[in-house]
């Protein structure tokens, strides 16, 4: 896997550079003038709800969807002119599986390597290596169809690595997987990151973004609303801790004004009240002394979910 290693290149331009990047379809604007840079070796994330424009952005980077306006450079090339050359150096994990169910697991890898013009022996060598990497060696001769969702995702990840890409584009790599399968995928992606592969991923899972991304942008309604490392974003847009109060049905509506001054910021959701403060336990004590008796109390560290709520006024998981 020597090709996956990347050399030190401090002075080179960013691997991906977007300025005023816009994607318009007939009746709506999917991406509305976004700017971002992705540096070599970093794990960069697009966080946002469904319909925020993440997939459209990824497809433009992947040179399968022409840009409507603005500037986009990928691997210092122009997607419009050099699409096939750029795609030769990308590894794409699409949101929907595109595996060939008529072929076996190993054949899926083989033929994909052939699309990149690799000789058959090289395809075979890499296919075996990659099956090992995603722990599917014993399924190599099976057809794709009976595989579980998690196995298919791992196979798709293996497939995207067959050309030893400089950049991996992962569109919601773990959506729809059970927790165990998610952790296995995260583990493999983390290993790739350790080897210096540049990862660009979209997600609507906060924990995924926090686990994998060095830096991320939050997208909402076709625009980027914030940018930074997960920690920076939490520091900037949230507090250290959050106290979550949940009341019996009907009670919360009667408590208008009773939370005032308890915390730096208060967010009232239909099912619970979030109180943002540096010390969540202090908030709980203060609330109890005011005679508030929530059914459940949870004091936790603040997450990207809180950042998103702050930035958009909406919960990320609808």
């Amino acid at each position, binding site marked *: 896997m020597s090709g996956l290693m990347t050399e030190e290149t401090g002075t080179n331009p960013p691997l991906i550079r977007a300025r005023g990047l816009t994607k318009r379809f007939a009746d709506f604007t999917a991406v509305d003038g976004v700017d971002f840079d992705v540096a070599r070796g970093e794990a960069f994330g697009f966080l946002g709800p469904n319909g925020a424009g993440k997939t459209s952005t990824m497809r433009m980077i992947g040179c399968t*969807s022409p840009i409507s306006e603005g500037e986009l450079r990928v691997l210092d090339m122009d997607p419009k002119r050099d699409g096939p050359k750029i*795609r030769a150096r990308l590894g794409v994990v699409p949101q929907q599986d595109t595996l060939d169910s008529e072929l076996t697991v190993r054949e899926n890898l083989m033929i994909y390597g*052939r699309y990149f013009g690799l000789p058959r022996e090289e395809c075979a060598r890499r296919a075996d290596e990659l099956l090992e990497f995603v722990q599917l060696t014993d399924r190599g001769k099976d057809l794709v169809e009976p595989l579980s969702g998690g196995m298919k995702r791992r196979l798709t990840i293996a497939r995207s690595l067959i050309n030893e890409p400089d950049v991996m584009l992962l569109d919601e790599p773990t959506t729809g997987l059970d927790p165990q399968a998610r952790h296995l995928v995260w583990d493999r992606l983390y290993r790739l990151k350790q080897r210096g592969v540049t990862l660009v991923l979209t997600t609507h899972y906060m924990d995924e973004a926090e686990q994998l991304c060095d830096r991320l942008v939050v997208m909402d309604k076709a625009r980027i609303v914030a940018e930074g490392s997960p920690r920076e974003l939490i520091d900037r847009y949230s507090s250290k801790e959050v106290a979550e109060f949940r009341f019996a049905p009907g009670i919360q509506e009667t408590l208008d004004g009773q939370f005032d001054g308890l915390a730096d910021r208060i967010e009232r959701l239909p099912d619970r009240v979030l109180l943002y403060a540096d010390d969540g336990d202090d908030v709980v004590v203060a609330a109890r002394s005011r005679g508030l008796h929530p059914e459940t109390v949870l004091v936790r560290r603040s997450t990207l979910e809180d950042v998103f709520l702050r930035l958009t006024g909406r919960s990320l998981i609808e």
Partner: protein
Amino acid sequence: MSRVIEHRARQYRRTFRASVFSSFGIPALFLAAMGFGLGVYVDRSADSVLAGVSYLQFLAPGLLAATVMQTGSFEASFPILNGLQWSRTFHAMYATPLRPRDVALGNIAWIAARLTLVASIFAVVIVLFGASRSPLIVLAIPVAVLTGLAFATPIMAFTATQRRPDRFATIFRFGVTPLFLFSGTFFPIESLPWFLQPVAWLSPLWHGVVVSRALMLGTIGDAPVLALIHVAILVAIAGAGALLAIRTIDARLEKG
């Protein structure tokens, strides 16, 4: 483009044996039932109608072209929709250095190869039945393939605009099947009412049947220029369909 063909060939390996078997079996059954069975009755009065040609000999070139047409039409519908919509394997190709036009042309080339196999096997069956009068039957194979492509490429262009297979039934019911019956396959179009005869001219199948028949009956020398015009029309339809298919597949893959 060759990689796309390789992909289809890999898929085909699984059904290869069954496919070759039916490529032999279906024509043999048709020729036996219609050529021998029905032919007995036709041939009683054939001398005046078919100018000394047995019904089997009249029918064989028509069935050859028509069978290849049906295979081509089918190959341009469901397998293409599968790659674009169900398994999305064509989208997977587009994430590699392959371009949409490689996907389109690769699939057309694959269909051409498939049709060549079908037509060749059919030609062998025809020879075994003694239903060809001329060694030029060898040239009827590419003519039949061209006929199949004249259906396959426009249908492929249409398929790339569809997300569901609902309209394929319409194409087969109101397009392919009527043409199968009324393009001079089973009887000369001169038997059609006069006002329907020009309609046969619009059928790519009729052009293919006329040339295949002339080749297999050994009468191609009677009107070589007309035969070339028929072939040119087939080339034009297949070519225009291919250009259209490149455009619609490109648009579809970009849409996602």
